[in-house]
């Protein structure tokens, strides 16, 4: 599909895509420093060193991937889980997880 910016597979074998629209219009428009971190974003999904978590409030559709920090941050990638096409919703840096997140 020509709207796919990148496609990767997570450790459980789930294919995750990121569309061009998501990358340019949602992620970079609000987190422009991630422009230079595209490979880190992909690695966060393929090799989430801090694991994969499910959201307490969106248990049916949101999962989070974390990768190792460079102080004071973790890379966090938010994915909407879908049997047909799991998609990156957003990505950003955080210094912690949310209290309600559960490790999968």
């Amino acid at each position, binding site marked *: 599909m020509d709207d796919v910016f990148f496609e990767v597979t997570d450790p459980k074998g789930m294919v995750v895509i990121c569309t061009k629209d*998501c990358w340019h219009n*949602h992620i970079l428009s*609000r*987190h*422009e*420093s991630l422009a230079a971190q595209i490979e880190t974003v992909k690695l966060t999904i393929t090799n989430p*060193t*801090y*694991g994969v978590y499910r959201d*307490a*409030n*969106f248990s049916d559709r949101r999962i989070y991937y*974390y990768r*190792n*920090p460079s*102080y*004071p*941050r*973790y890379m*966090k990638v*938010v994915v909407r889980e879908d049997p047909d096409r799991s998609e990156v*919703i*957003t990505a*950003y*840096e*955080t*210094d*912690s*997880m*949310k*209290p*309600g997140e559960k490790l999968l």
Partner: protein
Amino acid sequence: MSAINQLVKMEELDFSRVRRAADDGTRFKGDYDAVDDTLFVYFGERPAEVIVHYLDDFIGLLYDPASFEVVGIQVEAFEHSYVPNHDLSSKWELNDSDRRLLKSTGDLIQASERKVRDVTKEVERITRESLIGRSGNRSLVLV
């Protein structure tokens, strides 16, 4: 697998920009991401890089990693949870009067921007109360 630890404590963050914004009446800027259902509110200009410091499952402070200065907040699950939980539906949802004025995409964009502005003011008020309540120290945080 390593645990995710809290890397920065709230006491390490610098709230001077928020205090200045409150003192000089700086308009807070709202930006709603409909895909992620997240409202971003900035206290002045947004830096190129921000880190999220979660206060709870919905609200995170946004700070500049170079200075640890708090520059805004993000509210997750905004439409799904925050709006109904804070009785903001009347400000967020389109009413009959709004709908009658919608004739074009331009009208829709104007209405959206107006709604975001209106609700940003409410989020600003709620956030101040929330932060002051958490810190227990008005001078430390916002006012």
